[in-house]
């Protein structure tokens, strides 16, 4: 009588998660690269105000971590898509896995890099401030908003991470759809831009789109925002899981 190894889903998922952290460490290198580029781009300022009076130009350059956060969003989206590509799925199938354990481990990995992404994007703002402080010696730097308070850091980290989660799961779903059928390579972008174009023409659609965006963007209660983000993330991830459960691996 053969003795089968009985294996628990949780155990495999945990193993796979650790395996992914080791195997995909290269992805964090890309995060560092993307954020370094973002910091360099941010040096030029994200806005400003100028007034000329005779021979004098009075200028206020505004700086923010917007570019860093936005590029981190893009990075998270890209990484999520990459996670669903064939070579990464096949990487799972090399060792013990099923689609559920694979997806759960991906989910855990996704949360991990959203946390790291969120933290680093917020801290990127601090780096930006240091760069300006040490290059000017502090002269001409407005003290307002300069010293990031722990509250501000924590809030920035939390909200950025929540948005990263939303974007990553969206990317993950897109990736899963594309892996399911290559038709989605065409469908998804056309859907995206189609909605944008329609919103530009039709006030009703624009209103709906804005409402959808405001559902998140105008939520000023942290608890409500967290609940909304987690709910949406869970639903989107659930859909991705259902679809992926039917796909074949190592074709």
């Amino acid at each position: 009588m053969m003795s089968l190894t009985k294996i628990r889903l949780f155990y495999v998922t945990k193993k796979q998660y650790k395996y992914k952290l080791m195997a995909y460490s290269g992805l964090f290198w890309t995060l560092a690269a993307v954020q370094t580029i973002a910091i360099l781009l941010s040096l030029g300022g994200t806005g400003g105000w100028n007034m000329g009076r005779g021979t004098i130009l009075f200028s206020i350059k505004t700086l923010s971590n917007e570019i860093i956060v936005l590029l981190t969003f893009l990075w998270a989206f890209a990484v999520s898509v990459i996670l669903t590509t064939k070579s990464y799925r096949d990487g799972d199938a090399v060792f013990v896995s099923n689609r559920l354990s694979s997806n759960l481990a991906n989910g855990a990995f996704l949360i991990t890099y959203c946390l790291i992404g969120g933290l680093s994007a917020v801290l990127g703002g601090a780096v930006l401030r240091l760069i300006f402080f040490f290059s000017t010696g502090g002269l001409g730097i407005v003290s307002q908003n300069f010293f990031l308070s722990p509250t501000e850091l924590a809030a920035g980290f939390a909200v950025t991470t929540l948005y990263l989660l939303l974007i990553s799961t969206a990317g993950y779903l897109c990736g899963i759809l594309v892996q399911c059928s290559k038709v989605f390579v065409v469908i998804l972008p056309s859907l995206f831009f189609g909605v944008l174009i329609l919103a530009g023409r039709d006030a009703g659609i624009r209103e709906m789109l804005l409402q959808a965006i405001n559902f998140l963007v105008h939520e000023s209660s942290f608890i409500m925002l967290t609940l909304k983000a987690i709910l949406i993330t869970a639903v989107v991830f659930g859909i991705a899981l259902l679809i992926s459960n039917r796909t074949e691996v190592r074709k």
Partner: protein
Amino acid sequence: MSITFAPLFLLILIIALICLAVYGAKLVIYIGRIKLGWLLTGYFALLICSPVVLWLLPPERLSHPVDATSLRKAEAAAQNLFPVALTGRPQSVNGVRTLEWQFRLDGESLKVESSRPNPFLNVMVEKTEENDGIIEATYFFTGAILGMIDVSAQVRKVEVTLTENTLIITEPEHYKIELIKFSQDFMAAQILGEDAVRRPFVFDLIWEQLLYLRIPQGVQLQKSDYYLLSVPLEKEDAR
């Protein structure tokens, strides 16, 4: 997030999506090969340390906003300087600073020239009762407050000299006074509120200047680089 940045964001998104679709597999292989642990560690160590270093920086090295009273005073000075000068009593404006020159003019005519092609300064001329050949030039200027920061120290002053019968006004060359202003983390702002932690910042400039000349009655003003406004206006009106 600034609206101007949205198209760029979309463009990058499109490019990224296309690249992913076309080069996805290759990209994955390429990424996998990169393993620069120390670089990664260095980057994240820098990130972690930066807020701590930030908190250790001396705040006094930064530019702090002026208090409300000084702001109001500077504003009042800037607003009043012109109207009051037109009445012939610019020295009566509160908070206005001055630079004064005195020249003795030989002759009956005066020309006012600029050292640079495009003169900007407002010049007012008052004819005095006496005929002693003394020309008084007074440069009036208010404090300069750029976006709530006092930048008066950085504003360069005007120079006035007299050679023969020509008054030469030297305005400073082109220069820039720049402030660097950090925005609040727009992600944090969503739950903290834009103004929750600090006062609003005003993007504005408070600064006025003018040159006030007092010349003897008999001196003839020649055609000059500057438009010379005669003051006080009441006198003219009365005549």
